[in-house]
């Protein structure tokens, strides 16, 4: 990279950026610029995250004492349902693809925009329409099915606003289909000259894998939720046992989407970590193609493990055996990634900047989350801990300890590219530390609680569980502080942060070659790629020569 030089002393904001190219409400709400759409997504999902987080805090408050002294059980049912629905469908699924992916993917491959900018904008509107439906259900009294909408509870026995909530999720699903479709076509057809498949940054590989999963799995959720709505609205009987329907079929169809959706939520996180670790270890990633192919393998195997959510639902022993085996197999590509990241750090020149702190936290927390997934894949253990706090702790280690931490890592990493200004390093490091401590304090006790037999989704519990629950609630307050801090200092940095310059971390990757913030068309001249990704060794040599 002959153009890379050590940053000069005085940096200035570039004159021509995507932020100052046009002004006014219309220039945002009718924009076709992937970077502005990414910011609109960022604001929306941050608000949804605050809402979902508030629900979580209320639940933890209720669980401080064994008695149900803050909420009635109905209210508590609504709280965990709305927490689940909002966090899964309106935060985790769109989080990295629609914000960071939308922002950097076209730049990473050297394109001026995504293949279908109008569809990209439409996806945000569809997402918000879906959110309106779901939030109208929440405002008009809430839903209490659990985020899984299990039949016949959701279709026959509940009197809440299931149809509006389900249709909202179905509509928001089309937003992720559109995002996935856009990413697939963009990655195939819009790469800059010289950007071959095996020179793609691994973030692009993970987005590509996740897009395939989105495109193939989300339509099945759509038709499933339509059938639930039809069943409630018109009393057709596809899932109704009184009419000969099979409620377990609902579980099959739901998890056929929702298990791959777990990978929709975690794969983009893998992509972020694969960018951050080489950058702050100043080393080429260990085993590039192994990491790339393990993303694809997770995408494929992710479709073949759904029934491990149903080991106690009366499926046959033999199919349970097969699904258990496949679930063990899917741990292999995840483990390949973890080993490759740690091998990348080995003998690297490691810098503990905030994105790297989050990335290291990710590796540890995701490993715990992944390994406890193997406990659950084992048929005997699964029967013991199904629907207990063990499961809750397991998927929060993957979703919060994994995905949310990776999202924060990526958000800090690309913040200078998005805004042109650095986040302040000391509070950022502090918040990473607080988040890590608070997270473990919240969720580690839940493993123990679950193993001792405390079931999920109850607001009262026997007094002997109180100590661990108090620990967990205390952890949740610490975690809330850690997660709220970035909102303040990042907003602060918009005005007062140091000006970042094009490439503050001296990272490889085309997105760092353009100005920060980038111009509307990303590059003033179409780049031509002549090197592999993560070529940090020769970058260091050249800097030494130039410097």
């Amino acid at each position, binding site marked *: 990279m002959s153009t890379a030089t050590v940053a000069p002393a005085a940096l200035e904001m570039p004159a021509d950026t995507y932020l100052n190219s046009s002004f006014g409400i219309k220039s945002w709400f009718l924009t076709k610029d992937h970077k502005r759409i990414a910011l609109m997504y960022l604001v929306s999902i941050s608000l949804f995250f605050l809402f979902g987080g508030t629900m979580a805090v209320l639940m933890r408050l209720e669980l401080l004492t064994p008695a149900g002294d803050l909420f009635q059980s109905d209210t508590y049912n609504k709280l965990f349902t709305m927490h689940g629905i909002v966090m899964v469908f309106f935060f985790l699924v769109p989080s990295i693809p629609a914000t960071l992916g939308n922002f950097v993917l076209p730049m990473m491959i050297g394109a001026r925009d995504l293949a279908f900018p109008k569809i990209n904008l439409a996806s945000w509107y569809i997402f918000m329409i879906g959110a309106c439906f779901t939030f109208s259900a929440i405002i008009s009294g809430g839903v209490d099915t659990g985020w899984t909408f299990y039949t016949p509870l959701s279709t026959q026995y509940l009197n809440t606003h299931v149809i509006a909530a389900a249709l909202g999720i179905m509509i928001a699903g089309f937003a992720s289909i559109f995002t996935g479709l856009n990413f697939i076509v963009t990655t195939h057809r819009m790469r800059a000259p010289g950007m071959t498949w095996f020179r793609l940054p691994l973030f692009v590989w993970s987005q590509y894998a996740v897009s395939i999963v989105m495109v193939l799995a989300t339509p*099945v959720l759509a038709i499933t939720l*339509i059938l639930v709505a039809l069943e409630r609205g018109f009393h057709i009987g596809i899932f109704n046992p009184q009419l000969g329907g099979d409620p377990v079929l609902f579980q099959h169809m739901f998890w056929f989407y929702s298990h791959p959706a777990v990978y929709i939520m975690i794969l983009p996180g893998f992509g972020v970590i694969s960018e951050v670790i080489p950058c702050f270890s100043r080393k080429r990633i260990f085993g590039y193609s192994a990491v790339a192919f393990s993303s694809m393998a997770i995408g494929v195997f992710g479709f073949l493990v759904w029934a491990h959510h149903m080991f106690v639902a009366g499926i046959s022993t033999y199919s349970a055996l097969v699904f258990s085996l496949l679930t063990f197999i899917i741990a292999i590509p995840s483990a390949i990634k973890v080993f490759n990241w740690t091998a990348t750090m080995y003998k690297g020149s490691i810098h503990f900047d905030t994105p790297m702190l989050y990335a290291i936290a990710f590796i540890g927390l995701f490993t715990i989350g992944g390994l406890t997934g193997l406990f659950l894949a084992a048929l005997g253990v699964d029967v013991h801990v199904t629907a207990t706090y063990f499961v809750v702790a397991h998927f929060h280690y993957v979703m919060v300890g994994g995905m949310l931490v990776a999202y924060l890592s990526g958000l800090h990493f690309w913040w200078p590219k998005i805004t042109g200004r650095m986040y302040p390093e000391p509070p950022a490091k502090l918040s990473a530390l607080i988040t890590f401590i608070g997270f473990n304090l919240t969720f580690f006790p839940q493993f123990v609680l679950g193993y001792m037999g405390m079931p999920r989704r109850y607001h009262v519990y026997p007094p002997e569980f109180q100590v661990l629950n108090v620990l967990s609630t205390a952890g949740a307050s610490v975690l809330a502080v850690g997660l709220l801090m970035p909102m303040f200092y990042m907003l602060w940095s918009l005005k007062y942060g140091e000006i970042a310059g094009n490439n503050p971390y001296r990272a490889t990757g085309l997105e760092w070659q353009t100005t920060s913030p980038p111009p509307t068309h990303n590059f003033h001249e179409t780049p031509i790629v002549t090197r592999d990704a993560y070529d940090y060794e020769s970058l260091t040599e050249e800097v030494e020569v130039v410097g």
Partner: protein
Amino acid sequence: MSDSTVAADQLQHHREPELVEQFDTLEQQKDVSQFGMWVFLVTEIMFFGGLFAAYLIYRNLYNPAFVIASSSIAISWGAINTGVLICSSLTMAMAVHSAAVGARKLLIFFLVATLILGFVFLSIKGKEYYDKWVEHHVPGANFDFNYERAEKGEVVAPPDVASQTSIFFSLYFAMTGMHALHMIIGAGILIALIWKSYRGAYPPHHYTMIENFGLYWHFVDIIWIFLFPLLYLVSRSPVH
């Protein structure tokens, strides 16, 4: 990574007015939008796939109910509709061809013909739905498979089988209803395409919209080609 760059003006000289800014050439633009359309059709296959899976499972579980319920559907209307839909695919293919050779009047003619055939299909479907309503074959409170069947001299289903036929009709309405919804959306797009063709928006070097819509229309047609035998024909044998 980038040691040199392509001069910007080299890419931007004589850009056609139809070429949107993120692409370099019209060929790339066409290629990209067709690829996108195929990916979209894959999502549609998965969408209907859920219904086909449910059909498969219940047909195996409740075979006698599926046989008797399937035999109760008037085969003639379904067959006519299949013919209508295949004809509409032909007119759609002709429309794409007309666009390719730049015959604007023929393009409009064939698009209008496709639209009319689509409406004929939907009207016949509506008539079939009405018949189901009269026969009390719509799932819900009024569902009664054996309603007036004995009076008409038709085979009366035993009580357990009769209640299981409700599953067949649930699937019948869900599958044909989703298909009809796709037809209605398609008809809406067709009206817009006819208007824009009239305004001359699809010259021979830029008719990808027409071609992509053709792909969609043929896809909806193919879904029916699967629905017709599964719902009307495949169980049509005497009850043993």
